[in-house]
């Protein structure tokens, strides 16, 4: 695979916050003002409990949600909406079921105005990248979950964005497929050197993939700590270095989990009929 045309750009987050009004009229802080600098080509993994605002953060960065305050910039460009320069891989694949595999990968290329023949060649190249060139004329429903997510990865890379967001992309896969796709993704990332912002629940997955881990806390969502992972790839989950980072992440995480469960318990005893 040749090097990508678009160079990775830094992602700068300044004071980014999101509030929303809940059904009963209360103002909820989904994300407290957040600062974050993501280096070009970095593999950043965001870990945190459910409801910690990590998906909110990702959706704002992707331009699918507008922030209540603050801003995010890719290079010099302010994020103001979705842009073909920022790709995304969703947990439930989000393949278009009425298109075949090739059509799915071509979708963004067509929107960019790429001529048919070039589009086809480009899409086939990226399908080959994820090992699915032989499945170009299959419908998504004919594929397994792991194959669907590989198509989605090919689709996200095909438009050659400078940054790719991944929202728990392997969350719905079985453990073996997940491990295989982690290998594959690392391989693709090392060859293309695109900035990747990756969300997961899995601490092991985070340490396996990340240059840096951003640990977020729930209610309200904010960044608790940033943990660099300076281990060479491929990483061995049984090594002492890996384990020590794991301990560090869990220490921070457990603190927060205990806090959030205490809050839930408190809320439950205050209003036993709720929920």
């Amino acid at each position, binding site marked *: 695979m040749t090097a990508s045309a678009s160079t990775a750009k830094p992602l700068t987050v300044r004071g980014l916050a999101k509030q929303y009004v809940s059904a009963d009229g209360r103002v909820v802080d989904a994300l407290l003002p957040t600062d974050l600098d993501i280096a070009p080509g970095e593999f950043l993994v965001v870990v945190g409990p459910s409801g910690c605002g990590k998906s909110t953060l990702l959706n704002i960065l992707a331009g699918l949600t507008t922030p209540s305050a603050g801003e995010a910039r890719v290079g010099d460009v302010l994020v103001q909406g979705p842009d073909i320069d920022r*790709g995304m891989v969703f947990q*439930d694949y989000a393949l*278009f079921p009425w298109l075949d595999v090739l059509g799915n990968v071509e979708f963004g290329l067509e*929107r960019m105005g790429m001529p048919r023949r070039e589009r086809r060649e480009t899409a086939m190249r990226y399908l080959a990248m994820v090992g699915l060139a032989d499945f170009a004329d299959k419908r998504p429903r004919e594929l397994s979950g792991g*194959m669907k997510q590989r198509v989605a990865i090919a689709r996200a890379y095909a438009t050659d964005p400078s940054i790719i967001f991944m929202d728990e992309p392997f969350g719905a896969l079985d453990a073996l497929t997940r491990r295989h796709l982690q290998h594959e993704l690392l391989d693709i990332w090392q060859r293309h050197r695109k900035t990747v912002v990756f969300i997961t629940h899995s601490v092991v997955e985070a340490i396996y993939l990340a240059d840096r881990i951003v640990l977020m806390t729930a209610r309200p969502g904010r960044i608790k700590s940033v943990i660099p992972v300076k281990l060479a790839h491929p990483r061995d989950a049984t090594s002492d270095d890996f384990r020590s980072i794991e301990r560090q992440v869990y220490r921070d995480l457990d603190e927060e989990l205990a806090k959030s469960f205490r809050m839930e318990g408190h809320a439950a005893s205050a209003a036993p009929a709720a929920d």
Partner: protein
Amino acid sequence: MTDAHALAGRKPRSFAGRLRSRLARLLPYLYAAIGVVAVWWAVVLVFKPHMSLLPSPWLTAQTFVQLIANGELPRDAAYSVCRVLAAWVLSALIAVPLGFAMGRWQRLERVLDPVVELFRPISPLAWIPLAILWFGIDEGGKIFVIFIGTFFPILLNTIAGTKSIDPVLIRAGRILGCTDDASLFRKVVLPASLPQVIVGLRISFGTGWASIIAAELVAARSGLGYLISNGMEVLRSDFVLVGMVTIGALGVLFDGVFRWVDARYNWIGE
């Protein structure tokens, strides 16, 4: 689903194979027709009803051939089909865009939904008197009745199809370059809801076909409904039966066309 599973289970591709599976699908219709004719004939042989009440299948078949030969049946069938087609196309032109709009914009749906629910239970037949008063006994009145009969199935299915689109597909579309409403509609909303829209178009053609006959029974000088009501007035029950059989046969035929279209454009699966 495993990878092996994904590769298996394809339909037979050869021409002979397809022909055989198509014939196999037609067989139940053939059995049904043979059964109905057998019972009919048995009733005629046992009870020997007067010809004006129930003619034999053989006599009815002769009348059928005769009405085709003198051009009366093709003319009546063509009238009925054209009326249904005209009203159905008119319905689709209004109900499909309206359905997309109501499915997409909640505020519009909140306003219009009570109106739809109020008018929906009123049978198209109940509109016949007003249709005649407003549009006369010519084509206008009949087309109006069919319009009522075809409108709601199209509208409701289009709304349902639009609302049932997985939101993640909309987000994927926006991420992949559909940044304005028009392109998002064309590339995501329309193909995603198309199967359900086709279901609505198919159902509504059926209801339209059923209501044209009713409209023609009341006030018409042409059409299959007229053939039937006229047959009753001149005591020719063979005319009535020919009209009924033709309605059934054409109904099955049109439904077959829709099934074919559906199979071509439905991405939901076999």
